[in-house]
């Protein structure tokens, strides 16, 4: 049943996400594409929407995919699923925290998990780069095509602004503005 599927998928995502934010992106990418709940392009668009609205990415994407696939009850199931593991684990940990903090086992696990999460987010970014710059596969990329150059130029400008510590929501707005500008300019040509 779709509601169980949504609940359990997002429960699993919530349970295996360390480090917050985009740490869950690789798992979401895998699950969402495997279930064909969203296309890669829709997922990228939604990251931008999530950056421009308040709240954690995990909750935003769970609510969105839930609504998208099964309406309001779907949104409830997916969101409850992603929140529940955190909630239960923290309730448990808050009681035993003093022991937990200095536990060598926990510290050992974290020294392994942190680099793995960095690698996984790197892999997710790699997939996103391919989706934007090589939507029809790496062999058919034309570096001198209009869409490639347009995306590359926008990427460079936004990257520069990011280096100047511009806030994420402004980066989204600038990207949108550049997209509109480029779209209409290309229409004129």
């Amino acid at each position, binding site marked *: 049943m779709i509601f169980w599927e949504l609940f359990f998928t997002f429960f*699993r995502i*919530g349970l*295996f996400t*360390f480090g*917050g*934010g*985009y740490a*869950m992106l690789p798992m979401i990418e895998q699950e969402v594409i495997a279930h064909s709940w969203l296309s890669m*392009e829709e997922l*990228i668009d939604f990251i*931008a*929407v999530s950056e421009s*609205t*308040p*709240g*954690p*990415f*995990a*909750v935003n994407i769970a609510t*969105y995919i839930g*609504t998208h696939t099964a309406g*309001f009850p779907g949104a409830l199931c997916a969101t409850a699923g992603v929140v529940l*593991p*955190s*909630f239960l*684990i*923290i309730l448990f*940990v808050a009681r035993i*925290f003093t022991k937990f*903090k200095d536990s*060598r086992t926990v510290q*050992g696990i974290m*020294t*392994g*998990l*942190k*680099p*793995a*999460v*960095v*690698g*996984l987010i*790197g*892999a997710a970014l*790699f997939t*996103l*780069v391919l989706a*934007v710059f090589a939507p029809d596969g790496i062999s058919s990329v034309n570096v001198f095509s209009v869409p490639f150059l*347009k995306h590359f130029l*926008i*990427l460079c400008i936004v990257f520069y602004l990011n280096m100047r510590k511009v806030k994420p*929501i402004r980066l*989204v707005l600038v*990207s*949108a503005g550049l*997209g*509109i*500008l*480029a*779209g209409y300019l290309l229409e004129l040509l």
Partner: protein
Amino acid sequence: MSGNVPALFTTFLKIGAFSFGGGYAMIPLIREEIVTKHGWLEDEDMIQMIAIAESTPGPIAINAATFVGYRTAGFPGALAATFGIVLPSFLIIFGLSFVLAKFKSFKPVAYAFDGIRAGVLVLVFRGLTTLYRQCEKNTLFYVLVLSAFVLEAFFKINAVYILIGAALIGSVSSYLCARKEVTK
């Protein structure tokens, strides 16, 4: 103590509605409300909260809300705070879901999203560098980063297995380090 429950709900509702940019961006906001304004917890608790939120699974915002709620008013507090922090996201995204699909066929919006697709790469890169900077760098770190990247990007191994494997390697290596210290 239980008198704090409604206040916890409204406080985290506010934090949920005004925190853009994810978990870490939300921590100063939580501190302002919980420590400075309400005095429910002390700065020492906030440090604990961050350590716990980072070393347990799940979004940092949810972890932080559950922890502060529990410390302030027990289980009802945890429930109120978590519910409060999720509700704004839930309602906003639920509402947007219907609007978004319709708007995308509108030309300027389609162009905007075309630009945003390139910009998003920078946002994910930003998240990646933030996390990278917090890590202690040594040989094991680079080996694990590279292996996780290759296994996920080129071999499409399920992320869960990669995480479990990395956790095992981390535990074994810290166990070995500890033994070395003892024998010295």
